[in-house]
Each structure stands twice: as structure tokens, then as C-alpha cells.
């Protein structure tokens, strides 16, 4: 019997390829197990949460604590901005969408057409959008009107609002951020940001940039206030209000907002259990250590 010519094929390379094929087939075999279904409205014990970067740490804390209390549940959290989360909810690739702003009507309509259910909103925390400046910036307060003029590029030097003689450097979130949309709506009254506003992907990047820039100004959730100073804003009463739990809950701080979790349709199964847990005293106890404020009990 002649030798098989194929045995002279390169053994190490063939072995490596065989190993790789084996691993792949194991993975394919695991497919038929199909234990991950992903985006159902809670029918399985796997949850996907996607969306707001403002909320991603909070969502991770919720997820970790919930998984510890309820072993057998798997929760997967990713960021990308409120817009990303809502888009994922529309496209069906996430169960729960984190949003640091309310959903718009056209987004709700899209959820209705694509997911055949109405978007269901759950308030999970209270946030104060703080205005951050460098720690060396002595600026005592700002009015919303001044803030709007700054971010529209009409005021370009700190001395025009009561600070030092130094050009203002604007930092903002990217436009996929709920915080960006919230700021645009509530501060700029839908006008455009100045074109030279630097946009950074993520609140942490904004804070990081402001902490290194003596002339910088940025905005973001109150939980991120490390290495920077939060400026007091003049509220409707005419007096400067600093962002704290009390002022956010009472509404005295002008830029307080709710943080939401949205599902397509009323939450069912694991999603319902999770959201009920998040809004319970146990879940809300995790909110303050992260830096946000619990949802007011009477539903302000």
C-alpha cells in the first residue's frame, strides 16, 4: 500500500486549524442549546440593558446587586448614550433602555411600529445636571440665561459673567447623549451649540477635560463631580442654588431631571422583577452611593 500523500501536509498548521475548527464547532453546537434569547420582554432569565452613559454605572450597580440576590439571572449592561439605548429598544436588541431624558414622541411611535407595543417608562433615579468648571475658577453662580449665552458662543470670556479674564472653552457630550438633548432643550431652548464646542464621548471624558482646563466649562450628571467644581445656578426664586439631594428633590435646582428605564410594552417576567426591585427601597438604596438621588416617594 503506498503512503498517503496527504500525510505530508504541514502538521503544526493543520493541527492549529483543526483546533480552531473544533472550537468553532463547539460554539456552533452550543447554539442549538440556544439559551440566550436576548431581547424578549423578560421571558428568559437574561436581561440586556443599554443606553445612557450617565446611568451606566448605576445600571451596573443595580445589575450586580440584583444578580447577587437572584442567582440564575444574567444582566448585560452597555453604554453608548441614551439615543443608542432607545435605538436599540426600537431595533429590538435590548430589553431595557436607559435614558437620561424622556423619550420623544417620534421615538415612542417608532417603538409602537417596530416592537408592536407602547414604550413603558419607569423612573429609577433623580439627577441634577451640574455645570462644571475647573477647581481654580472662582465663579460663584450662573443664571440659565447666561449659561445659554455661553454655550451658544455669544459670551466668550469668563470676565463677562463675573469670573477671571480668560477665554471660555466649551465642552459638551456627543449628540447621542440624553444629557446633550436635555441640555439643548432645557438650557438652549433648542438653539444650536456653538460650533466650536468640543464634543467628547462620555461624561467622564468631559469631566476629565474640564479638570485639566482652567478655562473650561462642561455639564453632566452630578455623580461625576470629581476633580471639578459644580457651579450654583440661579433658580426661579432668584437665589443661587447648588445641586444637592434636597434642592434636586424639591425642584429648587433648575436642572433636575429623572433618569428613566424604558421597556417595549409593560415589563414582564425577569424585566418586571428587576424593575420592581430597582424602584423598591432595596434598589433605591444603591442610588445615593453612586451619586444620584432616589426617586421621591410621593412621585414629584
Amino acid at each position, binding site marked *: 500500500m503506498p503512503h498517503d500523500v496527504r500525510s505530508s501536509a504541514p502538521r503544526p498548521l493543520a493541527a492549529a486549524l483543526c483546533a480552531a475548527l473544533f472550537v468553532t464547532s463547539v460554539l456552533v453546537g452550543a447554539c442549538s442549546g440556544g439559551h440566550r434569547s436576548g431581547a424578549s420582554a423578560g421571558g428568559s432569565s437574561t436581561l440586556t440593558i443599554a443606553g445612557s452613559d450617565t446611568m451606566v454605572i448605576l445600571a451596573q450597580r443595580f445589575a450586580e446587586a440584583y444578580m447577587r440576590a437572584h442567582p440564575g439571572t444574567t444582566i448585560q449592561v452597555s453604554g453608548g448614550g441614551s439615543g443608542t439605548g432607545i*435605538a436599540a429598544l426600537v431595533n429590538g436588541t435590548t430589553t431595557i433602555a436607559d435614558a437620561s431624558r424622556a423619550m420623544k414622541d417620534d421615538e415612542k411611535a417608532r417603538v409602537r411600529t417596530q416592537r408592536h407595543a407602547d414604550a413603558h417608562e419607569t423612573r429609577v433615579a433623580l439627577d441634577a445636571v451640574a455645570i462644571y468648571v475647573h477647581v481654580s475658577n472662582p465663579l460663584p453662580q450662573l443664571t440659565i440665561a447666561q449659561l445659554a449665552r455661553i454655550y451658544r458662543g455669544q459670551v466668550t470670556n469668563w470676565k463677562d459673567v463675573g469670573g477671571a479674564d480668560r477665554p471660555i472653552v466649551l465642552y459638551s457630550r456627543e449628540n447621542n447623549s440624553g444629557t446633550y438633548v436635555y441640555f439643548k432643550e432645557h438650557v438652549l431652548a433648542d438653539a444650536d451649540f456653538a460650533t466650536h464646542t468640543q464634543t467628547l464621548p462620555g461624561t467622564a471624558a468631559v469631566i476629565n477635560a474640564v479638570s485639566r482646563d482652567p478655562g473650561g466649562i462642561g455639564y453632566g450628571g452630578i455623580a461625576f463631580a470629581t476633580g471639578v467644581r459644580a457651579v450654583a445656578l440661579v433658580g426661579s426664586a432668584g437665589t443661587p442654588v447648588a445641586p444637592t439631594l434636597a434642592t434636586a428633590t424639591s425642584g429648587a435646582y433648575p436642572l433636575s431631571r429623572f433618569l428613566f428605564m424604558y421597556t417595549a410594552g409593560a415589563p414582564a417576567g425577569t424585566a418586571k422583577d428587576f424593575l420592581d426591585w430597582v424602584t423598591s427601597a432595596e434598589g433605591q438604596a444603591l442610588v445615593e452611593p453612586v451619586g444620584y438621588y432616589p426617586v421621591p416617594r410621593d412621585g414629584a
Partner: protein
Amino acid sequence: MSETPATDTSAPPPDELRTIASSTIASGSDDSRSLTRRRRHGPAWHRFGELAVRVMALTAVLAIVLIFAFVLREALPILWEDSSLHLADLFSPRQWADYDAPVYVWQPVGSVAKMNIVPLFLGTLKITVLALFFAVPLAIGSAIFVSQYAPRRVREIVKPAIELLAGVPSVVLGFFALMLLATWVQDALGLPYRLNALVASMGLALAVIPVIFTISEDALDAVPRQLKEASLALGAREWQTTLRVVLPAALPGIAAAVILGFGRAIGETMVVLMASGNAAVMAPFDPTSSARTVTATIATELGEVSHGDTHWRVLFMLGVMLFCVTFVLNRIGVAVVARLHRKLTAASR
């Protein structure tokens, strides 16, 4: 059966060929025609193997076609879909509600979507040109040094070291530019914006230098020694030889390298995303302002758009345009290199 590595090119590895010979002879004897066919093409699985090779070879072509087709597929409906976007607004300035002059604005998220792509392309161009401004002299200078001046042992260390720079992932270069380079540049130059086109282009230059260096160095090294020695023999100095004989001789390769580097710079995403500040400003001649590139825009905004809405289509349209630009650059590169090659080889006759 042992494998014999080909250490001796004068005689083929005996074991392998002996088995080929014996198996071919032992493949049986049918009528003469099928034997000839079998001997030429082998058993059926050989022919199948050859067919498989030919089919798989078309994958690269298929891939390019599919890439273009599917990115275009998502972008094309913008031409006929009923939406509030006027195509002219993508390119020409417009005086929006609260501005006092026509402007180019890219702010796609808001009650009125403003999607002018001119600032994006301007940002890409500005950062790319700046990056090449840094990269080309450094890369070609290093290539000249390594190929002409460095002794053999130095060359064997330096060349792989610079090529190691090619192995640095672009996300690491972006990280380096964002965390370290930006601070150093701001401390040194006192710039108003910490993240700007200058910092991004420096990071980008780091990504592009190895590309230009490798190809230029190969081109310079391939210049025949006779040219150099002839020039020296005729009395030219070393520097004259290098600049006026060797460099022009390697010009096709160097041109290819620069064009390749340009293409790479235009398409780079992570470095500019992290280090450029991402502000869509119209400041073509100010390197210290922020800039927003096409690639960073796609990378940041794609996640937040729902499939099928106008913003989605515009982002895919940007992708189509990027693809076309790099495609055209590629063709130009090939043509330029071919022409230079013809000119230089013709002139040497």
C-alpha cells in the same frame, strides 16, 4: 513519515516525491483516455480542490463589491425618501433660524436637524494634511538613513523597530494622544483647546509613519548599487548622490508609500475620535482649533440612530463617500506609480 524542510534547493525532498510517484503509478489502469485525464488532473477531489481554489479567489472581489453595495444600499434611499432633508443642505451653507448669516452646521440632533457635511470633510482634510506634514519628512528621512547610512547591524535593529510601530493598535495611539500628548502640547504651546487638530494629527502621524517608512525603505534599498557607485565614481558627493540619484530612482516606491499613507490617514478612526475634540468647525487654516472628521462622526453617531431614519442614511452616505475617496486614491496611486516607473525605466535606457 517525516517532514523534511527545504534546506537544499538543488534536490527536492525525496520522501514526499517518492510517495507522489508511487501513488500516481499505483492509481490503476483503466482505458487510456481516463488514465491520461487522471494523470493530468488526478482523482475527482483534486479537480474539486482546484475549483474551490478558483471560487475562493473571487472572494476578495466579492467582498469589495458587497461592501460598496451594502453601504450604498443603506444610503441610497435618501435620494427619494420623503423627508425634511433637502439634499442641497448637505453641501451648501444655509441661514438657519437663529443665525445672522448662512453657515455650515453639523448638528443632526435637535428639533431641527442640521446636517451639513462640509465641516466634516474639512476636518478630515485638515487633520490628514497636517498628519502627512509631520509624517512624510520623518518617515522618508528615516528611510534614507536606514537604507543609505546605517551599517548592517543597526539596520537590522532599527527597521523592525520602526515596523513595530505599525503593530501599535490605533486605539492605543489615540489613548496616548488623548492622555499624554494633549497635555504636553498644551503645556508647551499654551493653546486654548487641549484637544485639537494638531494633537490629533500628531497621533495620526504616528500611525502613518510606519506605512510610509516601510515601503520607502524597500524602494530605496532596491535601487541598484551600480547607480550609486557610478554617481560617486563620477565625482558626486555622498549627499548629492543620495538626493539626486538614489531618491529619484526610488520615487515610484516613495510616491506609492505617500499615497498609501494618505489613504490610511483619511480612513483612520480611533485616533481622531479620541484626540481631536470633535467640534465641527469651519477653520481650514487653524491647526489649533478642534476638528470633527467623517470617520469619528460615523463611529460616534451610528449607535444612536434608528435603522432607516434620515440621520442613519446620511451616516451611511458618508461611508459611501469615504469608500469612494479611498478607492479613487488607490487607483490614482497605482497609476502614478506605473507612470513614474515607466518614466524612470525609460530614462535609464
